[in-house]
Structure formats: C-alpha cells, structure tokens
C-alpha cells in the first residue's frame, strides 16, 4: 500500500461510516413515521394519532368475526395479546383474512372506541409448509398442552 492508496482507503471508509451514521440518526429521528402500523396496546395508550387515519395491526381474535346481514360489513376484534380494539369494515377482504391471522387495517378511531376501517390488508408470517405438516404440528401442540389457555 502506497501512502496515497492508504489515504484514499481511509477517505472512503470515512465516507461510508459518516453516511451510515447520518442514516442511522435520520431513521431514529423519523422512527414514528417509519412505523407501518400501531398495535392495539399503543392505540389504547394514546400513541396513535387522534382524528386522522392511521393503521392498526394485530391478530384477528379467534371467534370474533361477525358478518352483518348485508354480507359486506364485518366486525372483528384485533388483538396484540396485551390489548384489543374492535374493528368494523365494509368491503372485500383479502383471501388470507381469517381468525388468528395478522391484519393491518387503515382507518380512524371513533369516539366509542371502535376502529372504522377503510382498508384491511392481511399480513402473513415467514413460515412456509405443506398443509399436512401444519396439521401435524397443530396436533402435536394440542397434545402437549391439553386445553390449558387455549381459546375454544
């Protein structure tokens, strides 16, 4: 390494480190805005914006889906394990929407605490397996912890 090359190497290392620090600081500063959705616990704690649209994310609570007579309006409860928010949505739901599924709903919080959704997106997890394996896993888990803490 000639001194000139060392100098250039130091210079570009400094450049990358500097830009990295700047990007870290910027993303920390914009932390709130980078969140795609708020969890029910955050909503109940008052972190979510009031009076304007935001996204609510969580799992559809088992047994909470109720379809109204018109066939389009759906009521369900979104939970993050710590808190729950009731949601009403009128429209077509994605294929993956079902009990226990992760969803992200865009809408606003009404004064009665109900979340009126304009759009409901399904979130899927990073696990991929054939249906038989999923079934076998479920059976194994059910046998391991009989009834305790399991929603019926």
């Amino acid at each position, binding site marked *: 390494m000639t001194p000139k090359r060392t100098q250039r*190497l130091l210079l570009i290392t400094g*450049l990358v480190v500097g830009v990295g620090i700047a990007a870290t600081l910027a993303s920390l500063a914009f932390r709130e805005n980078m969140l*795609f959705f708020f969890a029910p616990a955050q909503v109940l704690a008052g972190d979510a914006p009031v009076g304007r649209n935001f996204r609510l994310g969580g799992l559809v609570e088992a047994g909470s889906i109720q379809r109204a007579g018109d066939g389009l309006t759906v009521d369900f409860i979104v939970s993050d394990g710590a808190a729950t928010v009731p949601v009403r949505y009128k429209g077509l739901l994605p294929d993956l*929407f079902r009990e226990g599924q992760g969803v992200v709903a865009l809408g606003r919080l009404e004064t009665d605490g109900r979340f009126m959704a304009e759009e409901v*997106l399904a979130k899927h997890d990073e696990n991929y397996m*054939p249906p038989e394996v999923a079934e076998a896993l479920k059976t194994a888990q059910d046998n391991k912890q009989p009834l305790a803490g399991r929603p019926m």
Partner: protein
Amino acid sequence: MFNLLHRLSSPPSFFAFAGRALPWLLGGALLLIAAGCYQGLVVAPADYQQGDSYRIMFVHVPSAWMSLFIYMVMAAAGAIALVWRIKLAEVIASASAPIGASFTFLTLVTGALWGKPMWGAWWVWDARLTSELILLFLYLGYMGLESAIPDKRSAARATAILALVGSVNIPIIHFSVEWWNTLHQGATVTKLGAPSIHPSMLLPLLLMAVGFKLFYFANLLVRARCQMLEREQRSHWVSTLIKEAA
C-alpha cells in the same frame, strides 16, 4: 495468490479467462433454474396458508437476494477502483448496474403480483418495500450518472462514490422488517436459527438462488468483456485479437 489475482485482473487475461468460464456459468445457470422451476412448480407442495400463490416466491426471493448482492459487488468493486484504480474493478461495477437494476425491478413486480392476492394490495409504503424502491432508484441514478460523464475513468470514480454512499441502504433493506413494523413478513432463510420453511420448499428456493447467481456472473462476464474491448480498443492485445479473428 495476490500475484495470480493481479495477473488475472489485466485486461487481456481477464478477457480470455472470462471467455472460457462463460459457457460453464451459463450452462450451470440454465440447468439449476430449470431444476428449480421443476422442483418449485411441480414437486413442491402447496402452502398451508397461501395455497399455490406462494410459488412466486421462487422468483421473488432469489431476485431480491440478487438485487442486494449485486449492489454489494458494485460497492466493493467501486471501493477497489477508487483506491487501487484497477480497470477491471471499474468495468465490473459498471457492468453490474443494469443487471442489478433488472433484478430489483423483477423483485418489485413479482412482489406486487404476490401482494395483491395475499395482502390485498399491490403496493404499500412500508419500510421494506420503500427501501427496495430506493435501491432501484440508486441503480438508475448510478447508470444515469455514468452516462452523463463522457470520460470512462472519471465516470468510474464518480459512480464508485455514489455506490458507496448508497450501500448504507443495503442493511436498511435487510433489517427493515425487524427494525420497524412492516406489512412485509420477516426473514425466512437469512436469519439466525433454522429456516422456517419446509425442506421440500427450501430446495427449489436454493436451486433458483444459485441458478440466479450463476446467471448474474455469466451476464456480468459478457458485459464486462464487451466493455473491456471498447475501453481497450486502441491497445495492442485487442488489435492482435482482431487480426487473429479476421
């Protein structure tokens, strides 16, 4: 070792070496991609939640990996070009950009096609999707900047700095699903611990990933050889080559 690399990086020996390696890389890529398509579309079972729609993963995920990998190659080649002024590094960085841009575009398109039936939206502005879109703009900006500077050697220096600055986006894309709430799910394979995908589905994914990688290297060598000839058109070895061919 260093000596061998040094000799290989001289334009004439790179040109000859790349020409010899090309059919192997291309053949391997086609073989692996064909095997991956067969395994992924015919042999692998349907997913327990997503049914058959998940199969687009076998194109989407390897493309996404390639979009990040090629950018890292570009940034590393750019750094080498800046410090050591090696012509081959400049050529490799420049030849990688259009391939990387294509893979990024493919990632975004297949992601949209996958997102509509599963999530219910073609596009959302979550951290993963947005940072991948920025990557596409980085590639396009790189190519634009390069073509705006007529002198190849100064263009290589300017674009190398852009590639290095843009490389901070790479960890952001990778970790976006962990750092922020995103609609995009977390990592399946590239994480600590066992991949959370059934082996029958992992096999086609890996076949495609290696196939895509070989395809990139083959494509890179074709482009790099062509650029090398253009840049060295006045040199002795190119005129000998032309005389031999004539």
